[in-house]
């Protein structure tokens, strides 16, 4: 009962903060609202009994990625004067494109049916022991392949960041 109310409360907050990200004029405020939005999503993970996912979400997204975002935007010092002016045609076409995307999304969701799960759902899958066992037993190859992907991305970033390649 309490979890239902919490779910609606968190969903309301998540949608509100998501809207504020788009609507606020100041880019720093947008980033801070996005951080708050991530916190509400972490709250959803806790409601799903996935504490590990929730805390990793906070550490990785709020603690690392958004701090770097904030870093870059603070140093860029964006304000109204430096903002590039866009023509009315560009704005209009962007509005039409985004509107048709919304139409497609609503249309596809309207005809959707509820997915019936084939396997029995284990409510404790989000706890760290179960998650670790699943990742390292059933999904070992995808897990290792994705780690190699991350390593490649890291090496690529270092290569791009170098001023001169000897």
């Amino acid at each position, binding site marked *: 009962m309490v979890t239902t109310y919490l779910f609606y409360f968190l969903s309301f907050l998540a949608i509100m903060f998501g809207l504020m990200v788009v609507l606020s004029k100041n880019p*720093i405020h947008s980033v*801070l609202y996005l*951080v708050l939005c991530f916190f509400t999503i972490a709250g959803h993970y806790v409601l799903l009994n996935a*504490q*590990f996912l929730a*805390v*990793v979400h*906070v*550490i990785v997204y*709020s*603690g*690392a990625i958004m*701090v*770097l975002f*904030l*870093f870059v935007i*603070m*140093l860029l010092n964006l304000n109204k004067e430096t903002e590039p002016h866009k023509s009315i045609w560009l704005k209009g076409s962007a509005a039409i494109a985004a509107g048709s995307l919304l139409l497609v999304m609503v249309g596809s969701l309207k005809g959707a049916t509820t997915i019936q799960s084939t396997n029995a759902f284990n409510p404790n899958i989000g*706890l*760290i022991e179960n998650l670790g066992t699943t990742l390292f037993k059933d999904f070992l190859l995808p897990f290792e392949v994705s780690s190699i992907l991350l390593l490649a991305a890291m090496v690529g970033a270092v290569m791009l960041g170098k001023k001169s390649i000897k």
Partner: protein
Amino acid sequence: MTLGYVIYKLVLAVIVFAVTLLIAMYSTYAERKVAGFLQDRLGPNRAGWFGILQPVADAVKLFMKEEVIPSVSNRTLFIVAPGLSLLTACMTGVVIPWGTSITLFGTSYSLQVTDLNIGILYLFGVVSIGVYGIMIGGWASNNKYSLLGAMRASSQMISYEVAMGISIIALIMTTGTLSVGQIAAQQQGWHWNVLVQPLGCLIFIICAFAETNRAPFDLPECEQELVGGYHTEYSSMKMGFYLFAEYINMFVSSAVISTFYFGGYNMPFVGRFIHDGNLLAILGVVFLFAKIFFGIFFFMWVRWTIPRFRYDQLMNLGWKTLIPLSILNLVLTGAWMMRHEILSVFIK
């Protein structure tokens, strides 16, 4: 979930909060006394007996001072930032086991507010959020010195979080749990983790100094280059909040270091002489606080002994020394844990 349970948890949380604030308050006094001792001076000795009322006088002074909010700054964020800093500093106390459990009227009360199954990650998450208070404060001041100080603080904290995280992974590998309560319980007697993970412990302590922005890593508030760092524009109790958050962080770091590596509330030999559970639990709390106070003294000792690093030296130490060392520690720990399997390949 009875009413009594809720009241007991609330009371425990309030006690932890109050003790944290009290210790942070007297850390400011201890800092000046230790500085005086190390520099052969007297330190504060006017307010009360041996200057014992000095923190109270400081608090009154900070509250009474004129509060200046720069006219061009972002007012809301400027006010929110110091509060955020203090909030994240206070949030870590809940997962630390302050003692075993006390039995009153047939009911056992654990002295840990909550034993999360991801306690270590919770601590780590709160530490990683702690950057925001400093960054927002530095940016909202609309001052170049503040912004540079905030940038330094956050890049320093992000850099040292990496080495800290890897040294914690090695600790998790040997203990096999992410719950802080279980880690403390495993170190009964002399099974302190520092004996298992000496290199990891050293890396963790160095990173704790960098995370709390304490000397020799107090680059964010380096006076010669940055005036007052991220709190240049802050005055009155808002600046007090930032300073207070630093002392709370120091207390919590000492508590975490004691719990992870130096046995927490465990003490060798005492269990042989005392068999009363409650007395043992209270002695455990006393023992943990003795370790914490030594940790705080150690923080101050280092501050008044070692000069400040240069910024490039700080970054080199973080990225080129501590991270490779912590990865080496991780590999060695893994090799030691798998030694039978590795040996059986060669000796067959």
